[in-house]
């Protein structure tokens, strides 16, 4: 028996009294007569897709001993976190707290405490990136959107962790955050999209916590150089992995516009790794970027 299985059984006995056999030993009936007929399978994850923050957030959650119904409740709670963050920080909604703050219609002291927290994170990310991530230098005014999306997923993941789920993977339009493992002994494997070839991956990396990739894709360049306030196009693809998605999002944005200088900045940070593809297709990565074959 693998360590993973032992851990799950132990968890099942103390957490909620739900016996381990409550997990579906097999997936639901398989009308196409495929592999399910005779193959024992690992626990099937609970999946969910939520439209929020102008994108789709997909959930893959391994419920563990709490069972699937309670897992779904935890996912609902996590989605509420995402919607609350969206309502607080949306720049599309003129009545959102952040919109009011930007207009000067309200003071920081009147904001929900999350606003001050995000401002602190933005300052930290700006410092860490040598200014290449700078929400204060956006043409339309203070815009922390890039960091906020990742930060909200970090918080949603915390909800799922607290619920007793054994593993989860959240994907918000190509920015991913995860904990646990997809199967006993396995690690999350994430492909980095190829900047030019849609039917290929640039590489596959191991995901321990968070990964964000930034680049000018389908809709052309959209990244703003904070030093000029104009669209930047220095690299084809910029990926950052690390402990939390808020920072990874911000640093990937910085890497996409800041090129070599931003790369050096990230290389000097503990706990974050960078992978960049430049406009001519050459690749560069920090030492501990977890490439997989």
């Amino acid at each position: 028996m693998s360590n993973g299985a032992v851990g799950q059984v132990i968890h099942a006995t103390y957490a909620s009294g739900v016996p381990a056999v409550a997990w579906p030993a097999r997936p639901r009936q398989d009308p196409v007569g495929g592999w399910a007929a005779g193959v024992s399978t690992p626990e099937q994850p609970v999946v969910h897709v939520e439209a929020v923050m102008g994108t789709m957030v997909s959930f893959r959650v391994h419920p563990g001993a709490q069972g699937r119904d309670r897992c779904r409740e935890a996912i609902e709670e996590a989605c509420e976190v995402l919607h609350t963050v969206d309502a607080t920080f949306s720049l599309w909604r003129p009545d959102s707290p952040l919109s009011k703050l930007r207009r000067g219609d309200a003071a920081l002291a009147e904001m929900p405490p999350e606003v001050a927290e995000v401002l602190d994170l933005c300052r930290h990310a700006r410092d860490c990136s040598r200014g290449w991530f700078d929400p204060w230098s956006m043409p339309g005014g203070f815009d922390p959107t890039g960091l906020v999306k990742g930060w909200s997923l970090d918080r949603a993941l915390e909800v799922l962790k607290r619920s007793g789920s054994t593993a989860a993977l959240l994907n918000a339009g190509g920015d991913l955050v995860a904990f646990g493992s997809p199967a006993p002994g396995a690690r999350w494997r994430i492909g980095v999209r190829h900047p030019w070839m849609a039917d290929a991956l640039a590489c596959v990396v191991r995901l321990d916590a968070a990964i964000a990739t930034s680049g000018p894709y389908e809709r052309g360049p959209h990244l703003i150089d904070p030093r000029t306030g104009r669209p930047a196009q220095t690299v084809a693809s910029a990926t950052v992995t690390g402990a939390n998605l808020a920072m990874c999002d911000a640093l990937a944005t910085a890497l996409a516009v800041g090129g070599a200088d931003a790369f050096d900045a990230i290389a000097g940070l503990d706990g974050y790794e960078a992978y960049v593809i430049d406009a001519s297709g050459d690749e560069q990565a920090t030492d501990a970027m977890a490439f997989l074959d």
Partner: protein
Amino acid sequence: MKRFPFVIGSTIAGLAGVLSFHSRATTGPLSHSVPVKAGTSARPVPAKPGSTETTAPRSSVAHSAPTSTVPVTTQGPPTAASATGVNEQYGYGVLSVRATVSGSRITDVQVVNLQTVDSYSQQLADQVIPYLRRQVLSMQTARIDGVSGATYTSEAYAYSLQSALDKLHFR
């Protein structure tokens, strides 16, 4: 020459979710990986200032990840089944796909409905969708749980595909 692919390039975000079940469920050879050709123009530079360490040599991305080989399933004779996914709205239109599965494999994906808000979005979708289809079919061998880096069309495609697979109880 290097510029135009920025416009048409696209990948599936959320395909992750679609294919992850499959990649966990297959009993095919788990030693398969994304092969990368060696000996091309990689020019890794020092990763940290003042360091002579470089990353492991990696090829130019233009040659990466040909994932088109399709492993033969070891299960019994499979029966093909199809279902159409929901119409997914995305920022620039709506689309739905029809998926065909055979045993534990997705064998085909076709777009059955596509309406876009303008002709430019139609052009983009027309260019992107063939790539998405190929990626769905080929990425089943890449054993990945997700793709980092996203686009609009690809998300709608992936989620409609997911709903089609749900109808087929495809895992």
